[in-house]
């Protein structure tokens, strides 16, 4: 006989039973999720929880891009990796963890740095992109590529004891450049590697990224587009603010834009932001 239209096997019905019981999610939401594909760029502090919850929830095809290897000083926040994987590529480690949680989904390993030369080819294979990177040039590059390809982007960031989250390029909403047309000075682009981060803060933000990606993939609720969540972990405060809509003057997504795939491929994001795509090794001289 033919498979049921919802595409859920009896094993899946049992596995996802708590999702299926939810009147606002149900068989329809799960069925959409199982048929969806999501790319997570970065298997670090944000990517770790995002990947685990996306895998567990039943996203049909889950892609991971990262070029880094697991280090001991990642372990305080990148809970998808175990000590046994120290020295191994993060993509391999994260993919193994996702498969061990949910063997019924497809996990795709992209063991390379995302660059203008490969971004279009990789990102075009997915419905939704999750930005879990840690630097300004990557954030501009990923957002621009999402605009060029017409993909929604779930963007999270964490540093110190603060986190930020929003959805870009969704349903007529703003892109990263609508908010930040001019890059900040390089001295303002702090990284976790230089400034520290409390491990659980990207944990919270990464979970929220998974939530927003699941909502978009299953077409439930109101995604955090045109709004931004600001988390202050130290004082336990959360602010959700209204941000500007799509800018008609935006150089990438605006009305008179001429930004094409070809221009994207030739754009120098490191020069634009005066900041490198990969972090320098940590120099710690604290004690």
């Amino acid at each position, binding site marked *: 006989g033919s498979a049921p239209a919802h595409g859920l096997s009896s094993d899946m019905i049992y596995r996802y039973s708590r999702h299926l019981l939810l009147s606002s999610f149900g068989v329809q939401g799960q069925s959409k999720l199982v048929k969806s594909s999501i790319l997570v760029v*970065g298997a*670090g*502090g*944000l*990517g770790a929880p995002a990947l685990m919850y996306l895998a567990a929830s039943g996203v049909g095809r889950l892609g991971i891009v990262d070029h880094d290897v697991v280090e001991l000083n990642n372990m305080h926040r990148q809970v998808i990796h175990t000590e046994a994987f120290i020295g191994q590529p993060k993509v391999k480690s994260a993919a193994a963890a996702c498969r061990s949680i949910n063997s019924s989904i497809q996990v795709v390993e992209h063991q390379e740095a995302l660059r203008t030369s490969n971004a279009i080819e990789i990102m075009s294979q997915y419905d939704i992109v999750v930005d*879990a*990177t*840690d*630097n*300004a040039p990557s*954030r501009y590059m990923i957002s621009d590529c999402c605009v060029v390809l017409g993909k929604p982007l779930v963007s*999270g*960031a*964490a*540093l*110190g004891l*603060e*986190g*930020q989250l929003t959805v870009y390029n969704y349903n007529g909403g703003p892109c990263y450049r609508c*908010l*930040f*047309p*001019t*890059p*900040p*000075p390089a*001295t*303002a*682009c*702090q*990284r*976790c590697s230089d*400034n520290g*981060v409390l491990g659980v803060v*990207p944990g919270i933000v990464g979970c929220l990224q998974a939530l927003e990606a699941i909502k978009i993939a299953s077409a439930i609720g109101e995604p955090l587009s045109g709004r*931004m969540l*600001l988390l*202050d972990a130290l*004082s336990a405060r959360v*602010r*959700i*603010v*209204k*941000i*500007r809509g799509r800018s008609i003057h935006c150089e990438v997504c605006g009305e008179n834009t001429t930004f094409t795939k070809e221009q994207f491929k030739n754009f120098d994001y490191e020069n634009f932001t005066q900041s490198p795509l990969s972090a320098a090794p940590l120099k710690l001289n604290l004690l």
Partner: protein
Amino acid sequence: MHITLEFGGGLELLCDSVKIHNVDVELKKGLEKLTMKDLLAWVRTNLIKERPEMFMKGDTVRPGVLVLVNDCDWELSGQLETTLQEKDVVVFISTLHGG
């Protein structure tokens, strides 16, 4: 005029690491309203203790800083021309890139 100012995303480091400032801003003589332009100048003079170039560029905030008036992006209320009311809450937050 009583205004609550909040700094985040690292901008608090420019004002003695204090995130929330409850301040009274006096209107300039002859003027009846306080705009964001006036407030920025006031903040620059009275609160920013170091590296003012990390807060402002020209007469507005530097790239990468979001300004929120009562939890709403100032782009939606007229940016520098936004008129402030008694008890407004203004947030300056630097966008984060870490993960």
